């Protein structure tokens, strides 16, 4: 881990952190307060990311760390909200504020759901997770925007999955105010043998800092499908910290279309034998769009499988970033690690930066990674056009084809079809413009 050795923070990083802290209020009381205070102390010691940080080489953190959120207009895509047709338990936040009217009753068999802001007891199951997985995820690389989240999150949900709830939980994030700045923190604990699907959708706010900690116990299954909101000017930094027990399954897929700045970090630890972790993303950027997927998967048990599949379609100067790492600890034999990151550049103005990394300390493992940047396949384009399909429409089909490998990581066929439908609508609407 020589490359990522922690250094003393730069004075500028500490100044930025103090300025940000000054603009916020630490929620007091209840079981979460010690974790919040601990996070605040860590934040003060580490500072916030600055442009010189190696981990922020390809993405400017300035607007994510500034005391105030830059303005972001709302945007109506003129189509029904994603997942609209699905039977799901809706939990709605508007600019980061819980909307009880729009939300469903939080009672559902097989799962306990509570709001972080309402959870004031001194003793709580979430105490073992809140801020704990985030703190573990700070080594070997600091992720101070997650630390900030642990300290200052105003709300979020605490989900304990004890069975197999009959429908997905659906977090819906509306954005209404042009300068809203939302910080939400969710905790999910999937107990042994339990199984849950969590949906997330919407732009959430002008600026959104979201952290989710997911503990999956032995033989538990966690599935996550996210469609980040379409507002062109929104900014988001999100973190998922996951810890996986024996024979557990963790699958996460993210669709991103639009958004001036998005940084999605996923930090997973496979701590039980035979665990499976799949993380995938499909993103489409046109114009003022910067999208960064930063993934760190640690194999610390035997016979585990991890997959990272990230595909980005970029045009009109859009920028894609992928930083993905597989770390195989000593003794994590029979690890099967796969990582692919690819971009489809639809013009010469768009760029893709990829930093795939493998770090392996066990000798009996199979790990592979690949990263490519390319244009539309001319042969395939000709094939479609020779059938009478116009160039723009043919390009859309080939874009769908390019994204297919990532989208196919969604296990549920109906949800997969919903995401394909969204991508397709986005592409064809743009063609019509």
């Amino acid at each position, binding site marked *: 881990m020589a490359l990522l050795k922690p250094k003393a923070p730069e004075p500028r990083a500490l100044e930025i952190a103090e300025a940000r802290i000054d603009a916020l209020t630490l929620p007091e009381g209840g079981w979460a307060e010690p974790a919040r205070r601990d996070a605040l102390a860590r934040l003060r010691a580490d500072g916030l990311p600055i442009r010189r940080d190696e981990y922020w080489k390809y993405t400017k953190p300035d607007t994510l760390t500034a005391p105030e959120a830059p303005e972001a207009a709302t945007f109506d895509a003129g189509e029904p909200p994603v997942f609209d047709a699905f039977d799901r338990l809706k939990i709605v936040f508007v600019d980061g504020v819980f909307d009880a009217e729009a939300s469903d009753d939080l009672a559902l068999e097989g799962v306990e759901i509570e709001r972080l802001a309402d959870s004031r007891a001194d003793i709580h199951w979430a105490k073992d997770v809140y801020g704990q997985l985030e703190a573990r995820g700070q080594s070997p690389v600091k992720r101070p925007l997650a630390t900030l989240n642990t300290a200052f999150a105003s709300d979020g949900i605490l989900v304990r999955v004890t069975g197999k709830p009959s429908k997905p939980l659906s977090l819906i994030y509306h954005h209404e105010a042009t300068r809203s700045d939302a910080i939400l923190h969710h905790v999910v604990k999937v107990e042994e043998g339990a199984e849950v699907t969590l949906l997330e959708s919407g732009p959430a706010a002008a600026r959104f800092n979201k952290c989710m900690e997911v503990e999956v116990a032995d033989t538990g299954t966690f599935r996550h499908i996210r469609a980040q909101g379409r507002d062109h000017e929104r900014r988001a930094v999100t973190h998922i910290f996951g810890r996986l027990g024996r024979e557990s399954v963790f699958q996460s897929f993210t669709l991103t279309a639009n958004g001036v700045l998005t940084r999605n970090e996923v930090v997973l630890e496979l701590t039980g034998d035979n665990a499976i972790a799949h993380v995938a993303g499909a993103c489409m950027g046109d114009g003022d769009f910067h999208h960064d997927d930063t993934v760190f998967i640690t194999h610390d048990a035997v016979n585990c499988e991890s997959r990272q599949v990230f595909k980005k379609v970029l045009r009109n100067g859009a920028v894609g970033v992928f930083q993905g790492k597989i770390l195989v600890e000593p003794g994590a034999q029979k690890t099967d690690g796969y990582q692919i990151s690819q971009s489809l550049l639809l013009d010469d103005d768009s760029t893709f930066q990829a930093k795939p990394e493998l770090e392996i300390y066990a000798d009996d493992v199979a790990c592979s990674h690949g990263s490519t940047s390319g244009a539309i*396949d*001319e*042969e*395939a384009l*000709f*094939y*479609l*056009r*020779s*059938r*009478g*399909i*116009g*160039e723009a*429409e*043919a390009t859309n*089909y*080939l874009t*769908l*084809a*390019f*994204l*297919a*490998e990532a*989208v*196919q990581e969604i296990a549920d066929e109906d949800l997969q079809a919903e995401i*394909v439908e969204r991508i397709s609508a986005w592409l064809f609407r743009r063609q019509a413009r």
Partner: protein
Amino acid sequence: MLEIKNLHVKLEEEDKAILKGVDLTVEAGKVHAIMGPNGSGKSTLSYVLSGRDGYEVTDGSATLEGEDVLGLEPEERAAAGLFLAFQYPVEIPGVGNMTFLRSAVNAQRKARGQEEMSSSDFLKEIRAKAKDLQIGQEMLKRPVNVGFSGGEKKRNEILQMAMLEPRLCILDETDSGLDVDAMKLVAEGVNALRSPDRGFLVITHYQRLLDHIVPDVVHIMSNGRIVKTGGPELAREVEANGYADFKETV
């Protein structure tokens, strides 16, 4: 129907002439076969006619029903009634075969100022045509050509041809990679489409396909030109003696 006059073509990237004055007329209702050794320019002719990038026409013309096709985009040529069955059909993951075919059919109709085909009419038609080619429901739903065997890919080409109802069909080495049974099935599909108002240009290296799709006219191509034209017996002559005899006539 298709009239090619003195067609000269070179590769865009390099100064290499591939077609050196091709003259060829395909009449409606007729099947013309083009045979020739590797590198004679057979496939280039099919690509140039269908509008693939990378070739430059330096002289000559090609018209379909009197309309110049060489100036058209590939999709415009398709709408004008030209169809190329590919030697190597392309795989397109994530796009269902049926979705693809329906947009192709409707794009062509739109280009011709016709009404789009309704979902139910399209389904009815594709099911019937797929059945004749022994293409099952499952294959229709799968992504275009993904995981298809060589034979399935070629049958899928013929299905597209059947759905698009072109006026001129060009088959580029359709027999390559097929075993005898698969070839028979493909040939039956092609024969079913033979009609008085449709022309065929069948490009092949071997005579065997022409046992099943019996041509009206056979052309031998060598070094970028048609060097000999005759009836089906010409194909058998090639089968017996190879192309060596024809090369010398160049």
